[in-house]
């Protein structure tokens, strides 16, 4: 159910008339699939060096799973569309045939989603011993 709130408009000074009245829905936490979590974690681990090649290497080394370039980029596109990561182009090197790299970094929303997912698992695991 929605909760009634009085919130000032985005660009208006706070005075009586410019208050906007609206319902805000309790936003559900962004749900992350397992592979999405892995990709986000890989980006987080790599920090400044996160572009296609190292991300794949990181996933293959740590999670021991083969990733095709198509699967990786379609996931990255999705994460970007959801506003969890940001990408930009830079560093064209000769080794890459003069083509630029697409770098990724986590946005605060991505960080929040990862933390949320972890919290869910933590709660589910609490008190269990397998």
């Amino acid at each position, binding site marked *: 159910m929605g909760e009634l709130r009085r919130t000032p408009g985005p660009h208006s000074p706070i005075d009586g008339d410019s208050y906007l009245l609206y319902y805000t829905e309790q936003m559900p936490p962004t749900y992350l699939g397992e592979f999405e979590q892995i990709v986000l974690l890989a980006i987080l681990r790599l920090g400044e060096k996160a*572009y*296609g*090649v190292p991300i*794949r290497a990181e996933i293959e080394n740590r999670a021991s799973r083969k990733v*095709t*370039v*198509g*699967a990786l*980029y*379609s996931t990255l*596109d*999705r994460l*970007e*569309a*959801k506003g969890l990561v940001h990408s930009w*182009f830079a560093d*064209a090197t000769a*080794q*890459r*045939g003069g*083509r*630029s*790299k*697409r770098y990724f970094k986590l946005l605060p929303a991505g960080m929040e989603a990862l933390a949320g997912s972890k919290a869910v698992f933590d709660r589910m695991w609490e008190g269990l011993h397998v």
Partner: protein
Amino acid sequence: MSDPPKFAESLLRRLVGGRDADAVAGDLRETFEARGASRLWYWGQVLSCFAVRFSLHRRALPGIGTDFSRAVRRMRRNPGYALTAMLCLALALGVNTTLFSFLDSMYFRKLPVPDAGRIVEIRRQKAEFCTAQNYFAFRDGLRSVQAAAVSGSGGYMEVGRTAFVAQAERVSSNYARVLRLGTTLGAWFGPESESAAEPPAVIGYRLWKTRFAGDPSIIGTRVRVMERDYRIVGVARPEFTGTLPPMTMDVWLPLARRSNSRITSLVARMAPGENLASVRAEMRVISARLQAADPADKTLASPLVVQPDAGFVFEWNRTFFLPILTLLSAVSGMVLLIACVNVANLLLSRATVRQREIAIRQSLGASRPRLFRETFAEGLLIAAGGLALGILIGYWSGRALELFLPSLPAAMYHGLTLDVDWRVALFLAAAGIASAILFSLPPAMASSRRNLNPAMKGDTIHTSRQRELYSVVQVALSLTLLIATGLLLRALDRAQHVDPGFASGHRVFVNVRDLASQPQMDSLVERVRELAGVEDATLAGTIFPNTGVDCVSAEHEANPRQARSNIVDPNYFDFMRIPIVKGSGFAPAGSITETPRVILNETMARNFWPDTDPVGKTIWLGCPPDQTQKLGTVIGIARDTKYTSMVERPMPMVYVSRREDAGSGFWSLIVRTAGEPHRWIRPVLDLAQHSGGSLIVYDSGTLDDAVAQSLWEVKWQASLLAALGLLAIVLAAIGVYGVVACSVAQRTREIGIRMALGAVPLDVQWMVLAHGLRVTAIGIAAGLLLSAFTVRLLRGFLYGLSPFDPIAFAAASLAWIAIAVLASWYPARRATRVDPLTALNYE
């Protein structure tokens, strides 16, 4: 170092596209060696990129937002050109919308009832469906549909002493339930109506508003419809006008269970899970059963029609407007094309202005697709603006057309609605997008041209040639329209001067219904003759343009042919100045007989007795098997006249004397007056209304007006085409002006040099004017050529005028030359105001 497979790389580029593809290809190349340079691995990775291609979250066309914001910025900087372009487009889209909504309401619009998609119309091709008794017998056994019966329409209505023509329809008591109809006031009648002592009636919204002034206390009022009393129980919803568009029903009456009448058609709602095929199958079975029960009834053999109720129901309604609407669609399509060319021209001139900027950007590395997209975005924005304005203009022109519609005969237009519904909106959007593509492509191509050299130098030959070509196309198209308009106007003029064959001046008619005896009508005619200012009066069964129809055959019950017919007073021919060319007229006296004397017109005489003298021959009148045939003896031949329209072909006609045929009780009292005929309508009406008895007046007017009104079709066509033609000319004139003005702007420097070297203003003016005229002249030549091929298609609208009428052709060409001079005049004058010093510094 080995290279990855080339073909796989280009596939990758196609799949992913843009800089994203670069990044992926770079990644793959970086790891290619490490993976042992396996081509198989590389192909596998490329194919996996299908996932990227079809991912829902793919970043569609990166940078598209920038394209649009740049386009908006450019338009804001130069709002005049963007507005002109939008307005041109909006005008053309507006008229196209109106025309399409016309087509829509004729062919596709469903009834304004809930779940209208399930309503079907069941009838026979050329006969009534069955008797009312039959219907009540099979109604409750139907599986695939719930069916309501609709029986005959037409008639007149009386409220107190006033009578008027009203479309009435008898419907079965489940009519409102089947169609799920609501009311504005009161309620629809239900099953109790089938045997009510004082039957209920529901009146249409329009009738309620016009005849009863929207009286809210109308429920319970008594009215007489076709000689029977009814009590009004409800007023229909405004949007519901019956199930037979474009006919508008004025009153719905219940179909009595014991009725002997025949029902015209069924209007039915398909049961859940049933479809048109199953309804057809069931109706075929029922029809076969009816036929088996009554093999003598030939009407039951007429083929069944089961169709969704959409648009105009009757074939003749659909075909009537088809030629003119086809013509108008073609013409408004042409107007849209002219508008598109205009916008393309404007965009091209913008591209010319921006040529250097574009060339610089291109040499700095902007890709061709990117520049193409940018221009295209501008086109789309203009199309969007044009679309929004076009909806407004379409609404207005729809209203204007509705104001104009009353010149149509009532049955033709009341059922037409020119609202914008989803189909119209869809059409508009499609037309807008199609035109955006049409007018954005050429400038987009021009702006993304490969060769930068001439552009850098400011050379603009290519686009100005292209724009001249566009202008030629516009002039040619609009000249064709102008010629077509001219032809139609000439045809109208011709039709207006057609001799009707009878005298219409100073003649007033009053249509009455009288069930009383002949002497009463005779005394009415006598009293009318005695009115001051009345010269003479006569009676006829029907009057132009509603002349009656009858069957005629040379032998008893053998192949009757249709002919026009009229029952007239003996003095009719003299009164109407229709000469008897052979034989004699009717005798002043006589008695009702089964073997009347008849007078034929010349066409009839020629058709039946091409070689011999028809006077003294006999002819059978009446349509078997419904009517008994009468044997007529021909006593004279009258000259042909017009019977239904001024533009009809000669039709066969039979006259019978009123002394020998009692007629149907409907008469036209025609009065010849001494002065202005309108002044005598009132006195004649008063006399008729107060003549007592059962006489009811239902229409009146002057014959001149009736003749003028019968030209509605020609007037309608000519004026609609003229409106569109005018619009086309305005658009094309803007085009010519744009081309000339732009060339003046581009040649400012040249003009400045000429002036500095001593050219007189007149030389410069002539130079500019000649440019405009040259473009126009080529356009006119092309337009004349185009017209030579297209005007043949107009033949059906010209009523005998040759499509190659030299006056229309010459007048249109001259008009265009005048328009071109006007359109070039202003830029020419501006050119001479150029100050040589400024011009030389001008860039």
